[in-house]
């Protein structure tokens, strides 16, 4: 596709034809999860109808077919984030599991009592709680780099937290609550200058920003498939091969072994060492189909479309009296988090739903961010490649009407 044709793209997503409470669906909850194109839905139907069997096991035709498709998805992920090798792509059920995997393997092997882990004040709970659990298990300490009122990391304070006790930096690439895109390249350079490895939580960034893990030089990168137009229950842990090689396995079971006796077990090579049990075969193949779909449109075109939507929405939102945007970082992805004077986000959510508009109202699994801004919750509209200016008009009209109704 050379020209970005949003109307044509919308035809690819069957759910966008749904009526919600009698109105056209306006789906603006993409930061929670994205809708799926027909190509992804078809890929799952195709696997189960024609290609399905267990992977890495049988000599029979279907097992070979299934394995080929499953491994082809791994190669697609590798190319999508420009990893050096398929061995660096570990399939997990989501970004959350990937963070937990790193905490419980790399973390337990390398982080000891008194050591420090540095995160930021804008993390999702999934990049806070696994580290808190590790700290509790090991006696290590979680340090939090602060943000300013616009929702940007205070870089100087982040740098000051890095010292000889710091054993890992775990930072969100793009904040789900604020939309802030972190200066990850500079973060990684600062950490690496002190020999500290960096994990990037890319759950929110992956559908919006072209990611090149080798150019970034991050040590770990994690993301979920379901925010990338792929099925739920798919996720990726990227890790540098040298790190993954020496990390202990995560879970024990089938597929992750080379040889088992009752006295000892020899573990399988990468990436299988970290993939115990039958994986989520069909959905991973669906993730491969989602990447094909995105590549056909092109990340730069998607990013440009979303940036235009965010600009349009931000400009309109600023004209609404009593609306306060939460998160106004210079570098920002397609998320508009806001609060209205004297109207609770849950009321906003219910009222907009009655107009067919799906937004998120709540703490966005980022309670510390809510505390920082001293709000119980925010309303959040988040945009994807299939959203339009007209949908933003519907949203803004809806907001203005509900302000009127509340009086």
């Amino acid at each position, binding site marked *: 596709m050379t020209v970005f044709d949003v109307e044509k793209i919308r035809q690819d997503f069957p759910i966008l034809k749904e009526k919600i409470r009698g109105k056209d669906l306006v789906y603006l909850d993409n930061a929670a999860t994205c809708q799926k194109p027909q190509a992804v839905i078809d890929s799952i139907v195709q696997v189960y109808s024609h290609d399905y069997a267990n992977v890495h096991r049988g000599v029979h035709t279907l097992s070979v077919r299934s394995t080929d498709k499953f491994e082809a998805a791994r190669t697609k992920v590798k190319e999508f984030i420009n990893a050096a090798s398929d061995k660096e792509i570990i399939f997990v059920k989501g970004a959350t599991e990937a963070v937990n995997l790193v905490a419980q393997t790399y973390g337990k092997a390398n982080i000891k009592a008194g050591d420090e882990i540095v995160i930021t004040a804008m993390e999702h709970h999934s990049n806070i709680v696994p580290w808190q659990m590790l700290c509790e298990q090991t006696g290590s300490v979680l340090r939090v780099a602060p943000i300013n009122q616009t929702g940007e990391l205070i870089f100087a304070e982040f740098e000051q937290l890095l010292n000889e006790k710091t054993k890992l930096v775990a930072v969100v690439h793009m904040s789900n609550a604020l939309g802030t895109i972190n200066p990850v390249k500079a973060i990684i350079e600062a950490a690496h200058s002190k020999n500290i490895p960096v994990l990037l939580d890319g759950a929110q960034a992956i559908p919006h920003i072209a990611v090149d893990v080798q150019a970034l030089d991050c040590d770990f990168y994690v993301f979920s498939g379901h925010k990338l137009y792929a099925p739920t229950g798919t996720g990726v842990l990227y890790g540098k091969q040298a790190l993954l090689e020496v990390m202990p396995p995560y879970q024990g079971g089938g597929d992750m072994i080379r040889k088992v006796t009752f006295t000892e077990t020899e573990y399988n090579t990468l990436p299988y060492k970290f993939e115990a049990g039958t994986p989520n075969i069909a959905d991973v193949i669906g993730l491969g189909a989602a990447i094909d779909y995105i590549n056909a449109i092109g990340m730069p075109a998607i990013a440009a479309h979303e940036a235009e939507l965010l600009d349009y929405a931000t400009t309109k939102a600023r004209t609404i009296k009593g609306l306060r945007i939460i998160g106004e970082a210079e570098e920002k992805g397609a998320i508009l988090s806001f609060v209205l004077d004297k109207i*609770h986000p*849950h009321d906003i959510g219910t009222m907009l739903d009655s107009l067919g508009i799906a937004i998120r109202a709540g703490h966005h699994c980022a309670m510390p961010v809510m505390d920082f801004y001293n709000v119980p919750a925010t309303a959040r509209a988040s945009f994807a490649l299939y959203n339009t200016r007209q949908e933003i008009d519907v949203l803004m009209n809806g907001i203005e*009407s509900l302000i009127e109704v509340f009086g």
Partner: protein
Amino acid sequence: MFDDLRDLYQEVIFDHNRNPRNFRVIDDADRKVEGFNPLCGDRLTLYLKMDGDVITDASFQGSGCAISTASVSLMTEIIKGKTEQEADALFKQFHEMTTGKDEHFNLEAIGKLAVLAGVREYPARVKCATLAWHTLDAALKNQQQAISTE
């Protein structure tokens, strides 16, 4: 524009949201319990002044959505002068009305609270309406610790 929501957001609810009744602290309260809905961040503190088993005064502080604010505001009005047993009976009636287990809740007993019956059609919002009453329930049982809807 919001015709579909008329059952949920009745004018009485807007009124109580704009001007919550009994929105104050009772300094010498006999019972004080905090209620919290972690899903949406609704937070309230309920104060009761008792004379024997009669609730002589009720008030609240906190912040929440229109449904939870109206619910606690209406509750503090209706329970004043009621005995603990009467308040408990109202709690049970209210619970029936909002969770929809019984279509034939006692409309007469519930009185003004019937404006909140609409939440039964909105499962995501039921807890907004019931937070106040679960907090009252804890207060009537003389529990000291904060209660949570989750």
